[in-house]
């Protein structure tokens, strides 16, 4: 099944008509307004804030609506060290997010535990959540986070949205 149809104006068709497929349109809506759930747990959250501020401006990619409200968000950005004490809370907030949902593991700690090879730190948030994009760095530059967001957008654009929805309903 072809899932990466382009959305756009076709000069061969006259008038205000755009021909596309439902999948592609849905994905286009989704990928350009990925509202993040800022799971800021450590210093990576400072870079996450920088990515949201004017210099890097994550709003350029439609992801500026950072609210601490899992029920209105699409992508959880896990920014920082996930301790075992926090792990269940992170999982619970992820569970509260509506489908479809994605996860970015931002930085070394969220991806693998980072430098904390320790009794207190979860060795990578992928042990409790399905992670879509990992960002390297300690902490990553805001550009790296934006790159991760664009990679996630490309991933969202290729998803079989309708088929996933049918699977979720049945």
């Amino acid at each position, binding site marked *: 099944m072809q899932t990466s149809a382009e959305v756009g104006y076709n000069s061969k068709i006259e008038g205000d008509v755009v021909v596309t497929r439902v999948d592609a349109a849905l994905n286009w809506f989704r990928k350009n307004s990925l509202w993040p759930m800022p799971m800021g747990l450590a210093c990576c959250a400072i870079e996450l804030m920088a990515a949201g501020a004017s210099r890097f401006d994550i709003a350029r990619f439609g992801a500026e609506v950072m609210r601490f409200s899992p029920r209105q968000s699409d992508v959880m950005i896990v920014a920082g060290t996930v301790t075992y*004490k926090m792990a269940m809370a992170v999982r619970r907030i992820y569970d509260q997010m509506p489908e479809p949902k994605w996860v970015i593991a931002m930085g070394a700690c969220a991806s693998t535990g980072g430098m904390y*090879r320790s*009794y207190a730190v979860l060795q990578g948030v992928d042990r409790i959540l399905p992670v879509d994009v990992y960002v390297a760095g300690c902490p990553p530059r805001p550009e790296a986070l934006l790159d991760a967001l664009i990679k996630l957008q490309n991933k969202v654009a290729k998803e079989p949205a309708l088929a996933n929805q049918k699977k979720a309903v049945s």
Partner: protein
Amino acid sequence: MSALEIAQQLKAKFADLVSDPVEFRGEVTLKVADAERIPEVCAVAKNELGFDYLVDITSVDNCGDDPRFTVVYELYGYGHHCHVRLKTDVSEEKPELPTVTTVWRTANWHEREIYDMMGVRFRGHPDLRRILMWEGYPYFPLRKDFPLSGKPSEVPDVAFSKAAPLEGGPFVTIAGGKDRVAREPRVRTPES
């Protein structure tokens, strides 16, 4: 008045209980022989000698020695700007001593941290719960016999923990290595 002079006053009040003050690099330390009487010594230090600020309470695990634990009180006075350290030993069989929250209220969280990390209990503490780890965590992670990688545990619906993969680590540097490769932090077994 110097810290040493104040420490000598404290020693004069508790002749048998408190050791002679030892000064090392400008820091004065007193050893209290009986941990059971630590609140008494602290009350005198605060009310009569002006140590109105309890900076910190810490603990040491002298694993293998007897008594195993040392509890360390750091006192400071805003009136005289002097700093004195009190040390007292606690045994492994009965890791318990009376609280000093009755003297300084700030001792509350310091004592909770020591209980959480080292497993030393403070009798009479108003709220002796874990402060960093979660309720039900079965170990005391700052004890020397607790592995760096941690141990698996599970408290349903609260938290779990697993041993961290150390991959041959801990990754350590060797000071004074010949070249950068030798100085880099890398996997080194205790023998090498």
